[in-house]
C-alpha cells in the first residue's frame, strides 16, 4: 500500500493537507501550490521515516524545523512543527541584514542573524542533539550556528573559510573538521550518543569522533547565521539557508532519511543544489 493509499484509508484525501502543513499554511498565508505540495510531501516523508509524529509530538526528532519557504521574513520565521508567532514556539526573530527570497534566507555576513529562542540546555537533551543546514552558497564563510561560553561549544559550519566543515559537540577535543571545496548541500552534525559524533554532507558521513562526552549543555539560545558568544551575536556568515533544523541526535538511517526528504523537498521547489 502506498503512502497516499494509506492516508486515504484513514480518510485523508488527495486534496487534504497534512496536519503540520495545514497549520503552517494558516500561519504563513502561503497559497502557492508548489510550496504546498512540497510541504505535504516533506511531512509525509518525515512521518514515514519516524522522525515526526503529529499525534505524538514528544517523539519528534526536532525541536525546530525551518523550511524557509514563501520568500519573506514573515514566512521564513515559522517553525514548521509549531507554527505560532511566539518565542516559545521557536519562531525566528531576524536581526540585521537579510535578503529573503523564494530560494531561502540569506544573511549579509556583517550583522545578519536570527534568534531561534531555542535554548541548548533548556530545550535539548545532552548526548542527543543535531543541527542541520541546507546551504545554497558555495563560498566559504563563518559558522552557520555556534553557541560558545568560553569552553562549551556546539556548532555547525558548512564551509568555514580556510578550514571546511566544522562540527562541535560539545568540547574541543571532539571537534570534527573536514576540508570542503563546495559549501553547497545538506549538512548535518549529530551526536546520537555520548560516544558518537558524526557530520554528514548530502547523506554521506564526512567525519566522526568517538571521544566520550562528559560535558553538560549550556543555557544559550541558538542564533542562525552567527555565533552566540555568551549572549552576544558575533562572527556573521553569508551563506543562504534553504532549510535548517535543531533537535535530537540522529542515527545513520535517520540521517539518510532526513537528507532524502529534504533533498526531495528542495527539488520540488526547484532550488536543490
Amino acid at each position, binding site marked *: 500500500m502506498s503512502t497516499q493509499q494509506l492516508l486515504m484509508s484513514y480518510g485523508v484525501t488527495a486534496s487534504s493537507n497534512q496536519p503540520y502543513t495545514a497549520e503552517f499554511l494558516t500561519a504563513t498565508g502561503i497559497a502557492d501550490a508548489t510550496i504546498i505540495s512540497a510541504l505535504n510531501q516533506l511531512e509525509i516523508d518525515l512521518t514515514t521515516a519516524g522522525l515526526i509524529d503529529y499525534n505524538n509530538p514528544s517523539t519528534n526528532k526536532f525541536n525546530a524545523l525551518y523550511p524557509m519557504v514563501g520568500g519573506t521574513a514573515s514566512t521564513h520565521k515559522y517553525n514548521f512543527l509549531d507554527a505560532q508567532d511566539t518565542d516559545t514556539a521557536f519562531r525566528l*526573530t531576524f*536581526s540585521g541584514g537579510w*535578503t529573503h527570497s523564494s530560494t531561502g534566507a540569506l544573511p549579509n555576513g556583517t550583522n*545578519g542573524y536570527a534568534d531561534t529562542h531555542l535554548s541548548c540546555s533548556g530545550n535539548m537533551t545532552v548526548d542527543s542533539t543535531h543541527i542541520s543546514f541546507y546551504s545554497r552558497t558555495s563560498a566559504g564563510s563563518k559558522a552557520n550556528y555556534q553557541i560558545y561560553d*568560553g569552553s562549551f561549544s556546539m556548532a555547525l559550519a558548512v564551509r568555514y573559510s580556510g578550514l571546511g566543515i566544522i562540527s562541535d559537540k560539545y568540547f574541543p577535543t571532539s571537534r570534527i573538521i573536514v576540508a570542503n571545496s563546495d559549501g553547497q548541500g545538506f549538512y548535518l552534525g549529530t551526536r546520537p550518543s555520548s560516544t558518537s559524533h558524526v557530520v554528514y554532507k548530502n547523506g554521506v558521513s564526512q567525519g566522526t569522533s568517538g571521544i566520550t562526552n562528559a560535558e553538560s549543555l549550556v543555557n544559550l539560545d541558538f542564533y542562525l547565521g552567527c555565533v552566540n558568544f555568551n549572549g552576544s551575536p*558575533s*562572527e556573521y556568515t553569508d551563506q543562504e539557508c534553504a532549510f535548517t533544523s535543531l533537535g535530537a541526535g540522529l542515527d545513520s538511517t535517520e540521517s539518510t532519511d532526513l537528507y532524502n526528504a529534504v533533498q526531495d523537498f528542495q527539488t520540488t521547489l526547484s532550488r536543490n543544489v
Partner: protein
Amino acid sequence: MKVYKVPNGITREDLIKMVGNEKSRLNPVVDAKGNLFISKEEFNSPEFQKMKEIYSGKLGEFELIDYEPIEFDIITMKYKKQINSGVEIKNK
C-alpha cells in the same frame, strides 16, 4: 563591502528599539575600528523608513564606510582584537 556608520548621538539602544514591519530588528554592531554601523540591507529596507525619517539629517548623516570585521580565530576560539564598545565581546 560597504556599511553605514551610525552618526554620533545615536546609540545602539536607540536603534534596537525599532521593530520592522515583519518584526525584524536592527542589529547595530561595532567594526574593528570601533565604528558603530548598520548594514546596507537595513539602511535601504523600506521597513526601516521610520528610522531614517527620525535620525537622518537631524543628528547627522549615516556615512557609507568600508566594513572591517573584528577577526576571530575559531581554532583558538579567541578574538584577535578586542573592541570595548557596542556589542561587548570578551575572550575567556
